[in-house]
């Protein structure tokens, strides 16, 4: 057989044209936008959190909390007779991975998403989730998340402004501390803490005695801590994740800083306490919406169930995710398994008295505006007064 190359090319060219026409000259993808939420089969909900890397303990707690809520609902027969299927995705605390996962959720028909624990990752995912109309109950606490006007984003806890204003009010108002030093890291969480706590101090007419910034990879804090020591504060505000904060406190004690530290959610976690050493964190002042497992009957029940399921003690992040999941499932039930904007509206309308407090969502997606002050005693967090 003799094939003339010219004809070959012509053939291929016309093939392209024909195929293009066959494809309807329409843009691809328009025909197969995944419908969010089919009407049969399990209800698909995603948990997106770091399951590997430095922040994986957060991710594990959140997944456990969400899983607990889902299994309790499923045990009671699910919603409208349909089981809830929870799938976990590892975002590696990386925003790019987050955006990939957001697209994946959109194309695979997930109705809602729980997580992430990193405000940065959530912010990266937001546009995609908004476009796909997937409500997202995040554990992030950055005030920036509330400012986008995105109707699909909800926080399962207070923003860092709440954490820090409560803390500042306690330090300056209750304890009458005026000499407050600050040490924060330059990461997303630390930078957010620094600006909101500093804003509170400024509002109270105070200046920090020393305002130290460290990097997220730093392991020696001698110079920052010595500067803080020399500024002779009554308390040191710390804005950093569990492990680094633990190392900071540990080194501070060995440098002879004896005053208490004060901080937000990370400072109430077992990882922080273990890393620093129980003796070193004694007296640490923590602003948290969930101080301990025995503040209420609900929290006792939650803690018991958590202990039973995972063999470890529950803490704030698990509780947050549990609350968020409960709110989501309640909204799904009340809305009759709605999806998209309807589901978001249902979440917004849900009034839920949970482990962290009473959720009443405003239009920015924040449902809780209160934290409590606790103090670390003998390695666990105890409510004040």
């Amino acid at each position, binding site marked *: 057989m003799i094939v003339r190359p010219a004809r070959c090319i012509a053939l291929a060219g016309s093939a392209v044209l024909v195929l293009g026409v066959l494809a309807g000259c329409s843009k691809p993808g328009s025909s197969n936008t995944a419908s969010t939420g089919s009407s049969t089969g399990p209800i698909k909900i995603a948990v997106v959190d770091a*399951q*590997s*890397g*430095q922040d*994986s*303990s957060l991710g*594990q707690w959140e997944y456990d909390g969400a899983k607990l809520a889902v299994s309790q609902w499923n045990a009671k027969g699910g919603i409208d007779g349909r089981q809830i299927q929870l799938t976990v995705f590892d975002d590696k605390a990386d925003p790019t991975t987050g955006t990939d996962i957001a697209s994946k959720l959109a194309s695979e028909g997930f109705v809602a998403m729980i997580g992430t624990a990193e405000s940065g990752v959530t912010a990266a995912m937001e546009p995609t989730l908004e476009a796909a109309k997937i409500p997202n109950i995040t554990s992030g606490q950055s005030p920036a998340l509330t400012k986008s006007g995105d109707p699909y984003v909800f926080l399962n806890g207070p923003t860092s402004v709440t954490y820090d204003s409560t803390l500042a009010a306690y330090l300056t108002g209750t304890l009458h501390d005026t000499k407050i030093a600050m040490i924060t890291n*330059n990461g997303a969480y630390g930078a957010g803490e620094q600006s909101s706590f500093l804003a509170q101090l400024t509002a109270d007419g105070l200046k920090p005695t020393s305002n*130290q*910034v*460290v*990097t997220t*990879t*730093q*392991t*020696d*804090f*001698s*110079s*920052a*801590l*010595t*500067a803080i*020591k*020399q500024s002779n504060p009554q308390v040191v505000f710390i804005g950093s994740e569990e*492990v680094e904060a*633990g*190392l900071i406190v*540990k*080194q501070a004690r*060995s*440098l*002879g800083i004896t005053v208490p530290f004060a901080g937000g959610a990370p400072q109430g976690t077992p*990882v922080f306490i*273990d*890393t620093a*050493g129980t003796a070193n964190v004694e007296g640490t002042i923590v602003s948290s919406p969930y101080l301990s497992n025995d503040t209420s009957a609900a929290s006792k029940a939650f803690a018991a169930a958590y202990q039973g399921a995972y063999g470890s003690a529950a803490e704030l992040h698990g509780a947050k995710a549990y609350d968020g999941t409960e709110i989501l499932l309640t909204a799904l039930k009340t809305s009759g398994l709605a999806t998209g904007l309807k589901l978001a509206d249902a979440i917004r309308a849900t009034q839920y008295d949970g482990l962290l407090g009473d959720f009443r969502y405003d239009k920015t997606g924040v449902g809780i505006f209160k934290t409590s002050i606790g103090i670390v005693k003998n390695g666990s967090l105890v409510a004040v007064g």
Partner: protein
Amino acid sequence: MQVFLQTIVGGLNLGAVYALVALGFALVYRTMGLVNFAHADVLMIGAYIAATFTVSQHLPFAVAVLASIVITGVIGLFIERFLRPLEGRDFDLMLIGTIGFGIVLESVATLIWGATGEAVPSPVQTRPLVVFGASVPTYDLVVMGVAVVAMLALSLFLERTRRGVAMQAVAMDYDAAKAVGINVGRSNAIAFAIGAGLAALAGALVGPELYVSPTMGGSIGIDGFAAAILGGFGSIPGAVVGALAVGLLNSFSADYFQGYADLATFVLFAVIVMIKPTGLFGEKTVLRA
């Protein structure tokens, strides 16, 4: 003044840790010509083994450290067999091959110990010494002491013992080493095992200062490698001096530049390497490099 002194103390302590890491890099390079980017992950394995012994088995810290050194050293023998084809290869392949192996070790650690990591309590609980107003934590002194002892022991081993001198000979002249009867393969395996043992020592010692997790190797490894390069790659005293320099560089840039500490450190490092490419003590060249 106090900040200055304390910064020095902090820098020296960091430096002591980096020294232990850099010694391992230097030893493996000097005796085998292998640039082992998995070294920091071997360190992580060592740290985990020591942490497991202290936290779960409640063994005394010193015993746990020794056990970790021995076990990691034996693991090192296996790793060397795996990496043997990379010895003396071009740098790209060593780089990617050993990085790949590091990823393997990280995932294995995650499978065994989980991703979340473990805090190791400090084994020494006495109050810090105060020198000219600067506090020197006792554990820091332990680490520095061990680093010095390790450097001396390693120098003695390489300079005075039959096996140590033979290892150097292998790196200097492969064929001549064979001709005098040195089993080159075995010599390299032992060199790597010692390097792994050193990594384990470093890992076990930094465990209580840091937090043991599968990804802990990353930044320690980069700083330790930078230290080895700065001192003159392959030089034993160079590794220690380079490590102290990198430690001080780190802590002083943290002092002056705060959030921009890494930026300052690495730009300065780049400038130093360009001015003095063979490091402070000069590269101990191996033939193949």
